[in-house]
């Protein structure tokens, strides 16, 4: 029995969980039943009291109806009339007895008329009867005995009927609601659900709206779902396209990364490499044994000789949040050639830097070449005025800081050059100048400077020479060499040279001052006959001091 009950209960729970109709019906039933029972309880409690009251009112009305006749009966002490009245009253079912008295005389007594009404099973309503001709003269009394039990029974019957009616109504309403929910809600929803199952496997399919729900909420729901399906479909297509596009882009990027001439790499703030391309390995001239390991190897390790500068570059990049670059000279070894690389670093967020390495050897060489061109005389290959000035500036700077104490400047002016030029043409003049330059190069050391500031004028700076006679000796050798005949286009040409020598002495001496003194000494040499060497005073100041 209990297992059957349990089974029933489980079945009910399942129904309620799985069916809106069952749930709604149960809810309505429970609600209306509990409301109905509450009302019935209230009603049955009140109905009894009200029925008693109503019975009293009814009986008072009854009394009023028979009053005049009762007045006459009492007035005349007429038992016949009184009995007639009493029997008439007894037709009312709620009355159990009637008695009519006139003074001490009982005119009529019908039914159960206890002497004392107990108030529980029987209660009485008594009314004085006055004379019909004198409203102040009491002529008798009428007493109605009420059967409370009968009234109770009547009230209970009434309450039972109303409870029954309410229950029936509740049941009917619940049934109606169940039907309405099934037809207007559950069935269309199931139809939509079936539609969803149907279209699950297909694309570009749409839900059909259940007939009759086109304009209501379910119709709107289906339309919305269809719109959603449509936009999802669009989204899927777009997604697929994007994925393809992305894959193509990635392949292209990978190709660029792999095949790029520039080395591309990513590293963190400590210089630890994360990724790089083959060009990076090639440009850094890394041997197979020294290939970097991602997440371990630092860029500083790979560029050990420039580690300090690389460190600085990384720090600068991170602090300024701007891209910075650095030119590094790579010394070649047995397997690789020497050259220059440029490393550019750019912060790309979260302490990560992206770097690009380019081979700039060619550009560097061009730069050096241009510098050389700018500093040298194209005709003879020795320094021009600009190169001389630069060289002197370096030499003087070194003289100030280093231990190289002295510098002798030889101002050389060619004799008879104009004549050669006039007689044999510019080409021959040029050849003479190249010849002289060769002589000067042969008679100087590697660290010395040779220059042709202009025309037939040459300057030689003997760096690190302190010996005056040595300088004079070199000057004399040069003059002797220049005096030797030169073969130009089958002709023997003779030229000569005058040389003025000035020494740079003292810390405050400037290249300009030394050159001016050398120039003056050269004019002195020229004046004292060609082919001479003339020595300028040690310094202007010294000579001035001597004069003084």
């Amino acid at each position, binding site marked *: 029995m209990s297992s059957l009950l349990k089974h029933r209960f489980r079945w009910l729970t399942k129904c309620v969980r799985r069916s809106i109709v069952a749930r709604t019906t149960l809810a309505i039933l429970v609600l209306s039943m509990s409301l109905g029972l509450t009302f019935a309880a209230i009603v049955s409690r009140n109905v009894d009291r009200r029925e008693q009251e109503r019975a009293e009112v009814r009986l008072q009305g009854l009394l009023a109806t028979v009053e005049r006749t009762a007045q*006459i009966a009492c007035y005349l002490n007429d038992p016949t*009339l009184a009995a007639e009245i009493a029997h008439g009253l007894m037709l009312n079912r709620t009355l159990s007895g009637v008695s009519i008295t006139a003074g001490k005389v009982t005119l009529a007594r019908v039914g159960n008329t206890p002497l004392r009404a107990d108030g529980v099973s029987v209660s009485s309503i008594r009314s004085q009867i006055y004379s019909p001709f004198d409203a102040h003269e009491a002529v008798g009394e009428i007493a109605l005995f009420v059967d409370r039990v009968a009234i109770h029974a009547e009230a209970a019957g009434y309450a039972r009927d109303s409870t029954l009616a309410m229950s029936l109504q509740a049941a009917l309403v619940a049934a109606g609601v169940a039907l309405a929910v099934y037809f207007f809600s559950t069935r269309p929803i199931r139809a939509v659900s079936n539609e969803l199952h149907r279209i699950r496997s297909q694309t570009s399919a749409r839900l059909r709206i259940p007939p009759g729900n086109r304009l209501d909420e379910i119709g709107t729901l289906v339309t919305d779902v269809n719109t959603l399906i449509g936009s999802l479909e669009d989204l899927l297509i777009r997604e697929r396209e994007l994925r393809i596009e992305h894959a193509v882009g990635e392949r292209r990027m990978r190709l660029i990364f792999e095949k790029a001439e520039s080395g591309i790499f990513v590293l963190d703030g400590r210089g630890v490499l994360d990724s790089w391309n083959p060009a990076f390995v090639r440009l850094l001239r890394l041997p197979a044994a020294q290939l970097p390991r991602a997440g371990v190897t630092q860029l500083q390790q790979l560029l050990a000789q420039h580690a300090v500068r690389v460190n600085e570059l990384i720090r600068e990049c991170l602090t300024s949040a701007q891209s910075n670059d650095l030119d590094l000279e790579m010394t070649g070894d047995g397997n690789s050639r020497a050259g220059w690389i440029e490393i550019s670093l750019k912060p790309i967020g979260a302490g990560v830097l992206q770097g690009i390495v380019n081979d700039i050897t060619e550009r560097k060489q061009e730069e050096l070449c241009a510098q050389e061109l700018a500093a040298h005389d194209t005709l003879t290959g020795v320094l021009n005025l600009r190169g001389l000035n630069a060289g002197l500036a370096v030499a003087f700077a070194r003289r100030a800081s280093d231990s190289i104490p002295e510098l002798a400047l030889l101002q050389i002016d060619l004799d008879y050059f104009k004549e050669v030029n006039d007689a044999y043409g510019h080409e021959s003049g040029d050849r003479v100048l190249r010849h002289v330059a060769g002589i000067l190069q042969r008679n100087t050391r590697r660290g010395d400077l040779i220059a042709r500031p202009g025309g037939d004028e040459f300057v030689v700076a003997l760096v690190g020479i302190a010996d005056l006679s040595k300088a004079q000796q070199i000057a004399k050798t040069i003059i002797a060499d220049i005096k030797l005949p030169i073969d130009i286009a089958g002709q023997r040409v003779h030229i000569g040279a005058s040389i003025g020598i000035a020494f740079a002495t003292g810390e405050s001496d400037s290249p300009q001052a030394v050159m001016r003194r050398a120039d003056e000494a050269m004019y002195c040499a020229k004046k004292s006959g060609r082919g001479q060497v003339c020595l300028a005073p040690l310094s202007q100041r010294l000579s001035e001091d001597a004069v003084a």
Partner: protein
Amino acid sequence: MRLLFALAAILLTQAVRGQTLVVIVNPSIGVQHLSRRETLDIFLGRYRTFPSGESALPVDLQINSTERRQFYLILAHKDVADMSSYWARLTFSGKISPPFAVADARVAVDIVANNPNAIAYVDRTAVNNRVRIALELTP
């Protein structure tokens, strides 16, 4: 208001004409005076005896006579129709019947004069010395 005026007018004309009802009894009977209530109880059948114990025979006037209308109006505050309904209720019990009615005041006086138990009401002008006035009914 209009009704009050009409009532006042009626009473005035009656006073002028000197119409005063009196209740008369036979002088042989030991009744000197009757109260209004005693008179009414006799006429309405409550008691059919005089207070002294002798039986009483009430005599009414014609149903449409002025005196009868006035009599019941003064004593019972009822009009003729009310009185008819009163008697109608009693007819089925058969115990009490309404007083018998005579043609006019003269006949009534004769009956009272000749019958010791009779009692009637007439206009004062109709009274003679053969009867005794037991009660004067001034409106």
